[in-house]
């Protein structure tokens, strides 16, 4: 009798084992947290801030730490200021705000309050603020926001415009515009508008501008303005479909992502020559590249990329990207890590 019981138990166990073996063979899609991996695979000087799953992580040499930012919302798009503090975006479902935080993640100030619907229930009064950037002299903050926009229920239009405001003074975003700010660009309606501002040392502004071709497509060009509301000069063609500009500290070396209106991208580097752009050089071809950013020394380039069409987005690095002989592209983070590809890394010399 005992023998039969053992046999039955073994039979049940074999059925269970077959069932669980199949479960183990399933494709696993969960990405690893940055702090739990073997990253970084390339040790770079200074501190690199990246965004993953709503948190900001700092990579310093071989060490990775998570910034102790308040919980709630998704933190992304860090930008390093000269004093080592950071500008960061905190995004919720219907709005986002700009914060200034310490390198450890302590909130120093909440610079906008883009959630009026919290008190008046009208969702369309909320605003987005994204892609903060600081002028080379450190006095002005530039950003894209969906202001101005029509009053609720008047129109479906909601597009980004580029604005700037003094970094030390207060400003506020509302439907009519940014109080205390200066408007730079007027977007092409119903395209998404103008984003990713990069202020240049000569006072001009470089950014990505989306435009309706009139032929069923929306494309992006790199736009250059010499002053607020001055005419935009296109530095790239609609066919190149280039965006995500990043300018090295020299003020003239530009990295950008060009898709040629396709489903793969090239990471390209070109030089600003007066009000034009020199011939671009492809430093990473046929990739899922996004969000380039330069090292404080201006010779090394970081960007987000997926190793293949199905892979995780990681942080990649090209040494001497602005030079005549760029190095090979190298992945900085472990392949199991999936970073926020639309959030450029910020590289601090500290």
């Amino acid at each position, binding site marked *: 009798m005992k023998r039969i019981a053992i046999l039955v138990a073994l*039979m*049940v166990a*074999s*059925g269970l*084992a*077959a*069932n669980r073996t*199949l*479960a183990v*063979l*399933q*494709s696993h*899609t*969960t990405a690893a947290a940055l702090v739990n991996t073997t990253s970084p695979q390339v040790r770079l000087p200074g501190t690199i801030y990246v965004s993953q799953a709503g948190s900001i992580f700092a990579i310093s040499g071989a060490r990775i730490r998570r910034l102790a930012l308040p919980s709630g919302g998704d933190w992304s798009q860090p930008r390093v200021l000269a004093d080592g503090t950071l500008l960061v975006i905190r995004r919720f*479902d*219907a*709005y986002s705000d700009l914060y200034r935080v310490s390198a450890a993640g302590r909130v120093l100030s909440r610079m906008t309050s883009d959630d009026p619907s919290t008190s008046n229930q009208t*969702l*369309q009064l909320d605003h*987005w603020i*994204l892609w903060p950037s600081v002028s080379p002299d450190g006095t002005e903050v530039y950003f894209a926001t*969906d202001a101005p*926009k029509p009053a*609720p229920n008047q129109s*479906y*239009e*909601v597009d*980004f415009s580029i604005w700037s405001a003094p970094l030390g003074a207060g400003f506020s975003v509302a439907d009519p515009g940014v109080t205390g700010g200066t408007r730079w660009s007027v977007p*092409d309606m119903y*395209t*998404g*508008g103008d984003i990713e501002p990069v202020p240049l040392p000569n006072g001009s502004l470089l950014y*990505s501008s*989306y435009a309706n071709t009139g032929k*069923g*497509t*929306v494309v*992006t060009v790199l736009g250059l303005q010499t002053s607020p509301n001055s005419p935009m000069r296109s530095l790239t063609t609609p066919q190149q479909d280039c*965006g*995500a500009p990043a300018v090295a500290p020299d003020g003239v070396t530009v990295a950008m*992502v060009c898709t040629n209106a396709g*489903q*793969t*991208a090239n990471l390209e580097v070109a030089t600003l020559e007066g009000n034009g752009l020199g011939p671009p050089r492809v430093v990473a071809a046929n*990739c*899922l*590249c*996004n*969000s380039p950013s330069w090292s404080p020394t201006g010779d090394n380039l970081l960007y*987000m990329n*997926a190793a*293949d*069409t*199905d*892979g*995780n*987005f990681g942080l990649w690095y090209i040494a001497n990207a602005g030079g005549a002989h760029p190095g090979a592209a190298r992945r900085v983070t472990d392949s199991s890590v999936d970073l*926020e*590809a*639309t959030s450029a890394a910020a590289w601090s010399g500290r």
Partner: protein
Amino acid sequence: MSRSYDLSGRRTVQRRRASLKTRPQRAVRASFIAAGFLVSIVAGIAFYFLPAIQVALRDTGQVNTSLGGTAQLKPVSANENLPSTSPFTLLLLGSDSDSKFKGDYLTQSMILTRVDPATRHVTMLSIPRDLWVRLCTGSNGKIDQAFLHGGAQCAIQTVERNLRVHIDYYAWIGLQGLVSVLNQLGGVNVIANNPVMDDYYPADLSGGNPFDYQRILVLPGAQRMTGTLALEYVRARHDDAYGDFARSQRQQQILIALRAKTKHVSLADIPSLATSLGSDFQTDMSIGQVSGLLPIAGSVPLASITQVVLLPPYTSSVYVGGQDALVPDWVLIRPEVAKFFPVGS
């Protein structure tokens, strides 16, 4: 019988008695034990694939189905395969299947797809949902109403008669099914063409009032899109210079990105995918044909995919029957369609 006089003598005797059983008896006992293990293992495997079996029985191999009506099984065997060399045409249908429609679904997305396994070439033609056509019922209306009036068969007949094509198969998916499958697959990698913004996006999947709005924003550039984000990307249309046309292009883009995922789908993934789809999926393909489609999709290179959207002058906006619609210019459309979807191919 030998005898043993030590303390273990009794056991020794028993063992020898047992050994006296005949060889056929031992064979029968061994067979029973083997069968028991086999049954147990098969049961374990069957239990694992139970969700897929349920979906296969309920949602595949169907035709003449009107959602909420009685499904009639198409006479195909479960393991019937797709043609390995000859091209076939598949009509992909997508519906807002949230609670505000109470089972009466329109098809917000209609993509006519031709797959040529031999040349590994795929053509996708998005049919605008507002296209004003003669429906299978004989009356005129927007093409998205065909599914509402007569299920997949009416949608197929309407497309076949108006575009003069032959459709071999159809597959229908609801919103929640799409979100769940994309999440199950870990999302798709896509280069978002531009910032996709909508302050009046339907808040119909968040569990509250399905008639509420929400604000959405999809950032541009290469990124991983999980289910909800991908749905927002393919569904948003209010702040878009090309409205439905633009989201048709984005729907094709997500389908193309999904093909990369099919390379990694194994047999062991089928039950969880079936569970994800729930009742938000229907097709007249057999389970064998569905599984045969995955490796074909995964092997198609990006350069071998042709995308077609019926922008003006193929269509023009009109106000008809108290609603905004798109009038087709069949003189322009039909030769173009015939080029990509030759009848009899």
